[in-house]
């Protein structure tokens, strides 16, 4: 609170940032609803995949919130999450290709996000570029 009064916090969710807010919002909803529906229907089928989708939803949700909130603290938190997201996409993407038997059903991050037009792998890169630039 005091920090906001002392120096004006900058916006992260405006300009190009708004397009990021939109995509992160969409992916939060997509990953969350996907994991919820799948967990309710048949959790035992692919627990690892569904848990990873739920984790994706949490990460996307937090980045969306940080972008909307703005300010230096949120910017740093979002930057860390974008980096983590990129690592997750690359690790899980490689994992799904190397050991498909561990994933009877797909996650958001399967095959580097191919089922989602590779947006899951593009988004964190654009996110980090924007968050670096937004600092000015």
């Amino acid at each position, binding site marked *: 609170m005091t920090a906001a009064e002392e120096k004006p916090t900058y916006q992260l969710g405006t300009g*190009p940032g*708004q397009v990021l807010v*939109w995509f992160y919002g969409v992916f939060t909803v997509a990953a969350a*609803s996907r994991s919820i529906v799948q967990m309710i229907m048949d959790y035992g089928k692919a627990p690892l995949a569904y848990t990873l989708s739920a984790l994706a939803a949490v990460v996307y949700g937090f980045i969306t919130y940080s972008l909307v909130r703005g300010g230096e603290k949120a910017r740093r938190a979002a930057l860390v999450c974008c980096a983590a997201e990129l690592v997750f996409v690359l690790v899980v993407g490689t994992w799904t290709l190397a050991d498909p038997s561990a994933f009877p059903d797909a996650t958001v991050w399967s095959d580097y996000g191919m089922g989602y037009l590779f947006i899951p792998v593009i988004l964190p890169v654009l996110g980090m570029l924007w968050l670096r630039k937004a600092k000015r």
Partner: protein
Amino acid sequence: MLDALTFAVAAAALVLAAWCGYAAYRDQPTKDWHFIGMAVVSVLALVQMVIGFVQLGRGERPEQGTAVFVAYLIGAFAAVPAAGVLSLSERTRWGSVTVAAGAVVLAVLEVRLYDIWGG
């Protein structure tokens, strides 16, 4: 009936995406005419959602599960209005980019809806 609407919504969404993309290219925010366009697409998506529910009510079942189908119907209806509200707070070209992105997301959702229903 549902398939025809799915095509109509997808086509309308792509036109809206191109239109708003053009506005962004010309460095313009979304204007009244764009919002009318968004309203048209949203009404089409609403009709699609209602007809989808009616078909479910008549006992027809989508190929890939009712829960997934309902989730996509709701998502398809919400996509363009949500992007439109966002663009209201962004009176620059980036608001237009957001709506264009929203319309593209809707078109993708329609492709998935077609698969889920089993057309």
